[in-house]
């Protein structure tokens, strides 16, 4: 297959943009809640200034809500920071189970919008590979996005990572409604998988997408 590097890089850039947009949306929600809680504290303070008694516990509750949302926003920013740094080096040592769980975390908002739950199942021991981290994340995100959109609401997609003889495997299990004709992987996913020297298979009968990755990937670029 012609790898078409421009297409692969464009796919990576689009995935980066998609994930960044979801992250900014989550941060906006946290900020909006902080804004309303702080505004309510201001409102209650103004009432207190006018002589209306306000219970101190009310302020404590609002402050606790603000701290909770700051913690939420901090977690989101940490995810964003980790994702941004995945572009630092082309090829590096990768913990496959940790990477799969991280991509699931990045896909949380998309899953919530489709009312699908994600359940990362880590391996018993770390599965360490030498791979191109950013494009591995890109491919996993595309697989997971397809799984989320295909699965019926209220169902769970399990993300199972395990070691194999050649390296490691990630299986997306419990995907409902997988069509039996080969709509996935598409040309872009196939090109990404080939670049990662991996094998990407959709098993409609089992309701699974399987990605087999060798222990040492040497980038084609």
């Amino acid at each position, binding site marked *: 297959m012609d790898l078409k590097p421009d297409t692969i890089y464009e796919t990576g850039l689009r995935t980066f943009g998609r994930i960044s*947009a979801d992250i*900014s*949306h*989550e941060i*906006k*929600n946290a*900020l*909006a*809640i*902080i*804004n*309303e*809680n702080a*505004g*309510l504290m201001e*409102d209650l303070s103004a*009432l207190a200034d006018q002589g209306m008694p306000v219970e101190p516990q009310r302020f404590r509750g609002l402050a606790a*809500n603000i701290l909770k*949302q700051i913690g939420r926003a901090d977690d989101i920013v940490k995810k964003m920071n980790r994702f941004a740094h995945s572009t630092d080096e082309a090829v590096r040592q990768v913990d496959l189970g940790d990477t799969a769980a991280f991509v699931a975390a990045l896909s949380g908002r998309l899953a*919530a*919008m*489709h*009312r699908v739950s994600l359940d990362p199942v880590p391996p018993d021991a770390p599965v360490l590979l030498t791979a191109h981290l950013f494009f591995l994340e890109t491919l996993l995100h595309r697989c997971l996005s397809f799984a989320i959109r295909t699965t019926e*609401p209220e169902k769970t997609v399990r993300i199972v990572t395990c070691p194999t003889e050649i390296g490691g495997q990630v299986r997306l299990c419990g995907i409902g409604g997988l069509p039996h004709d080969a709509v996935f992987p598409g040309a872009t996913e196939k090109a990404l998988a080939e670049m990662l020297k991996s094998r990407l298979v959709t098993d409609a009968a089992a309701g699974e997408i399987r990605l087999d990755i060798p222990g040492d990937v040497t980038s084609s670029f």
Partner: protein
Amino acid sequence: MMHILLVDDEKELVATLAERLSMRGIEADWATTGEEALAYAASRTYDLALLDIKMPRMGGLELKKKLHTLHPEMKFIFLTGHGSEEDFVTGASEAGADNYLIKPVNIQTLIAKISKALKEIPHSET
């Protein structure tokens, strides 16, 4: 007193905003899903609904259509966390560019938009 309905899947956001609006003489019910909002709207009439565009189950645009069927006179303001050009075009086409807000929202701005939207209610119906 005006009655408005706040709908957003972030419960803390709508619950707190409802309390702040009530302090300003605006009676507000809140819901975290479209289905819950429709249940409220089935039992009472609202002057205006503030709807988050992106929600699980039923997004704000779909909810607006259903609420409009129930209460054709109801006004709408859309709320979003995205702030993208695409969202702005979609929201503005549904509610008008003046009735589209991006989170976080200044409450004075929101009240000004609510007041402006409600002035557009045809007085012949009241």
